[in-house]
């Protein structure tokens, strides 16, 4: 029920431009995830959509209605604040019920919804406490609860799960997904957790410095990052980046020359002589033969339980990260063969724009 | 300068200025004595005085009022001056009886520094315009009522004849004395009768009924300041004051103010008496008593000082003082002095002293009178109640 259109929206604090000429169409029923480095303007954007922050330039439409001047209370949306902003003088129960009572809902319905949310968020034993008697994670769950009971047409979540433990986070993710399925509301969700972004999003927006770097489905972003920034930002552990130069090969075809590998051609390349960057995801690196290959030495093995990170030194001294399963048994100092496949490579030009492959397959 | 005394008085800018000049004169004459002058307005004066008395830190010389002097004397806060009379303190030039009120239980506790008597200040312009002819020094209550009616009628009610004096116990006191009685008996009991009170309130009640004096709205504000007097605000032509205050009334008004006697009831006495408007007293806490006496003496004997002080504190109670002052008087001053001289032969004996609790009786008179003025109680009932209450009050105050 809520299409959201953002046109040339900008936000300035004095001389500081925080959001800069932003355009975005969010369709009804979308689950849009907003990611980006700390301080890039995610919260600000959310707050502008909510109507809490004045819009310096541009226009925001909800369902084709300009809402720039519509107060937050009339926008029929709910929001989880990054800072929670729980009402300190109300018990948890009242915090949850407050928004519903504003809607003049029947007492029974309020109780039903509140109880249901409390159950889903596992805060039932805390219902009569005041916020100051809660732990960080408990507060955060109450904040989520306050947003979800209202079931509006638009949800805004600002890092709603950041203070929860892994298990709870998974459970909450499932609850939010279920809520989304049930209500079919539009959701805009800020997170730093890539797993959350990947599993929940229908589309992801990558913001940087108040500008959109790329919008797309999780797969698109992961497999076809539009630029070097997105490539580096999406994916954990971080993608490997190797500098390269474009040169003309003996057959006249343009080739990429990267110091540790023989020249190769991963797709259509721009003019020779230009600098480029080759990116390969750590889990796409093979310790064994590949379409191009070299030798490497194991510098460090980081053991993370279910997975292992192997830091490799290439002959030129460049570093390369290999991401393997928890069963991997390489040891520091081991010599290994390092192989890469052309299909796994992302090539970016000197400006950081993607050049090849024009269309990558799912890795 | 190794001797110093403090003098505390209530005042106003003019009086303060004059008093400081007198202090300077005194210091010039007695270079070894330093006098520090302490002044404040009337309302605050008594609060501060009480506090200092309680703390045992009274100024050496204080200014006293006839309403308060007995309160302080009876509690031992003031010292008798008798031993200094003729022995540093010259009083031989004083009028007879000038210090009668300051003499309590046979001791002289306050030297009068100004005499006064009751008076009815009136707006001469209004009187003239209304064509009221009367003898200010000899008129009756009927004359008074007629004048009120005439003025009210002439001005179409814009100016009434007089303020409603129902609540002025000072005016009432004259009424009582006209009948040959005193307010209080020698032993500090009520001496007036219920009939005195009733008749007084009924007299004013009739005028009020007739609409020739100010209405209750103006009347029931008690202890009005000068600025609130009907005569000052132009809503009435007469009020009650002591003679020495007529000058002050004049200072707030553009029209010339005259002074008349309190009208007497036909066939009765005049009821007026002379009383000191202020005293100088020496306090229990006085340190250098010699210096105090020298200071007081300077006030009453130095012609320079008397001229400096002017009429502000009342009319000098000595022939010598009045003579010294005569060339320096303003027009209104002259009128006041003329008035004072004119009533000399109509003056009765000094009243009995006011007992402890007299101040509270005064409050009670105003309070009970208010009920009458507002029409909440008939005068007869109120009069009984007042006399009864006054008895209680005096009893409790002893």
């Amino acid at each position, binding site marked *: 029920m809520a299409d959201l259109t953002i046109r040339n929206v900008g936000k300035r604090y004095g001389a500081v431009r925080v959001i800069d000429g932003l355009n975005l169409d969010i369709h009804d029923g979308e689950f849009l995830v907003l990611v980006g480095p700390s301080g890039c303007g995610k919260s600000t954007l959310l707050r502008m959509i909510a109507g809490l922050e004045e819009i310096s330039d541009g226009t925001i439409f909800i369902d084709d209605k300009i809402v720039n001047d519509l107060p937050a209370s009339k926008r*029929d949306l709910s929001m989880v604040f990054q800072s929670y*902003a729980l009402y300190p003088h109300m018990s948890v129960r009242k915090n949850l019920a407050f928004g519903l009572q504003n809607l003049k809902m029947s007492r029974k319905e309020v109780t039903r919804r509140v109880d249901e949310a409390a159950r889903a968020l596992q805060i039932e034993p805390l219902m009569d406490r005041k916020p100051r008697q809660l732990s960080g994670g408990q507060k955060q769950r109450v904040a989520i609860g306050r947003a979800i009971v*209202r079931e509006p047409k638009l949800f805004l979540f600002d890092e709603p799960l950041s203070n929860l433990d892994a298990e709870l986070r998974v459970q909450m993710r499932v609850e939010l997904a279920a809520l989304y399925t049930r209500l079919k509301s539009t959701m805009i969700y800020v997170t730093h957790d890539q797993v959350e972004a990947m599993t929940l999003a229908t589309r992801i927006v990558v913001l940087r410095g108040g500008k959109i770097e790329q919008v797309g489905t999780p797969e698109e972003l992961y497999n076809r990052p539009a630029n070097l920034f997105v490539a580096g930002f999406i994916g954990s552990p971080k993608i490997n980046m190797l500098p390269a130069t474009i040169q003309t090969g003996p057959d006249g075809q343009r080739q990429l020359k990267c110091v540790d590998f023989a020249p190769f051609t991963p797709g259509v390349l721009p003019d020779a002589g230009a600098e480029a960057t080759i990116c390969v995801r750590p889990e796409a690196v093979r310790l064994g033969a590949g379409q191009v290959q070299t030798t490497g030495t194991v510098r460090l093995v980081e053991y993370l339980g279910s997975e292992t990170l192997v830091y490799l030194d290439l002959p030129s001294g460049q570093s390369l990260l290999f991401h393997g399963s928890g069963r991997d048994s390489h040891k520091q100092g081991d010599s290994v063969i390092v192989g890469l496949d052309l299909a796994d490579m992302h090539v970016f030009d000197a400006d950081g724009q993607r050049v090849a492959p024009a269309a990558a397959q799912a890795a | 300068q190794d001797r110093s005394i403090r003098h505390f008085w209530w005042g106003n800018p003019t009086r303060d200025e004059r008093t400081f000049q007198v202090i300077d004169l005194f210091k010039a004459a007695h270079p070894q004595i330093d006098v520090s002058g302490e002044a404040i307005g009337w309302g605050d004066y008594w609060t501060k005085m009480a506090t200092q008395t309680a703390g045992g830190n009274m100024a050496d010389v204080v200014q006293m009022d006839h309403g308060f002097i007995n309160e302080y004397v009876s509690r*031992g806060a003031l010292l008798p001056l008798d031993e200094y009379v003729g022995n540093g303190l010259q009083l031989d030039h004083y009028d007879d009886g000038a210090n009668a009120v300051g003499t309590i239980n046979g001791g002289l506790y306050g030297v009068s520094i100004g005499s006064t008597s009751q008076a009815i200040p009136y707006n001469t312009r209004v009187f003239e315009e209304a064509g009221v002819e009367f003898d200010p020094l000899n008129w009756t209550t009927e004359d008074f009522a007629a004048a009120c009616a005439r003025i009210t009628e002439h001005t179409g009610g814009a100016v009434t004849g007089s303020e409603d004096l129902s609540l002025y116990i000072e005016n009432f006191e004259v009424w009582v004395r006209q009948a040959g009685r005193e307010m209080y008996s020698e032993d500090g009991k009520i001496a007036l009768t219920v009939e005195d009170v009733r008749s007084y309130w009924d007299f004013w009640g009739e005028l009020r009924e007739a609409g020739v004096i100010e*209405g209750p709205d103006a009347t029931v504000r008690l202890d009005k300041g000068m600025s609130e007097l009907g005569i000052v605000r132009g809503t009435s032509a007469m009020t009650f004051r002591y003679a020495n205050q007529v000058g002050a009334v004049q200072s707030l008004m553009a029209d010339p103010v005259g002074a008349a006697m309190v009208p007497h009831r036909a066939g009765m006495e005049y009821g007026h008496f002379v009383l000191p408007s202020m005293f100088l007293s020496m306090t229990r806490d006085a340190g250098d008593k010699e210096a105090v006496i020298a200071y007081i003496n300077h006030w009453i004997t130095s012609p320079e000082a008397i001229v400096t002080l002017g009429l502000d504190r009342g009319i000098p109670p000595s022939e010598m003082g009045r003579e010294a002052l005569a060339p320096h008087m303003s027009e209104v001053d002259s009128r006041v002095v003329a008035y004072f001289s004119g009533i000399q032969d109509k003056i009765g004996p000094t009243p009995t002293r006011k007992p402890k609790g007299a101040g509270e009786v005064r409050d009670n008179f105003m309070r009970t009178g208010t009920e009458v003025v507002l029409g909440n109680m008939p005068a007869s009932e109120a009069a009984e109640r007042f006399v009864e209450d006054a008895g209680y009050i005096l009893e409790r105050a002893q």
Partner: protein
Amino acid sequence: MGRALLPPPFFANFRCPLMRRFFSRNLPGYMFLLPWLLGFFLLALGPILASLYLGFTRYDMVSAPRWVGLDNYQYMFERDRRFWKALEVTFTYVALAVPLRLAMALAVAMLLDKGLRSIGLYRAIFYLPSILGASIAIAILWRAMFGIDGVVNQALALFGIQGIGWITTPSTSIYTMVVLAMWQFGSPMLIFLAGLRSIPRDLYEASEIDGTSPVRQFFRITLPLLAPVVFFNLVLQMIEAFKTFSSAFIISNGTGAPADSLLFYTVYLFNEAFRFFRMGYASALAWVLLVIIAVITVIAFATSKYWVHYENERD
């Protein structure tokens, strides 16, 4: 890591561990309270106890106080009609003036809290009557305004209402004092303003998001979060109202007139003490008032648990 350690506090080498513990726990508190403790025990307590003692004496401020036991209190409760009258006047005033004044102050503070231009000017203007306080000018003006031909009646005449002398009619005079109190709402207003400004904005934002109407926001968010300040104003205004002196004193010329309808408790007390030289009786009056105020204050504090929320209180 070499680090300049603070010198050990003087009580560190107290032998008795209990003493040590007592000091380490309490010392900062007592140190900060030291000025107040000194002031209280050296300057305030003595006079207060003295007044308690004087309440049992007959004391005319010149001669020494004379012990009379409970006489003062007995007289007060059994025979003193004016005491009861003073109580009636004072209670009426407190019951009306305090809530009205606070409501006025809060309403204006709310108006001024929202970003208006020239807000500083308004603040100053609204504070002005309070600056004028209980001056003689105010008394003169007030009597004139509410007099029979005053501005108030002139305004009423426009509506065809025949006015009366509001101050000089015993049954209405107290209300002019209430109006005066309302008019001088500056101090509570300023405190409310400071309080309103301390409310975290994000709570307003949250309630906006929750779709709260302005009225509901006021009652459910603003007011509860302002509760500590409301409580302060309530208690203090109540105490001050019980002790109202200056304005009543000057408007009634110190007498409580007309017909004792402005006989505020402290006006009565002042007259007893300073005009009729009954400081002993006045002290007794004072202690009765103190007990009345204390009881009401204690009740206020007790109920505050249920409506005043302190975010930082440990429980």
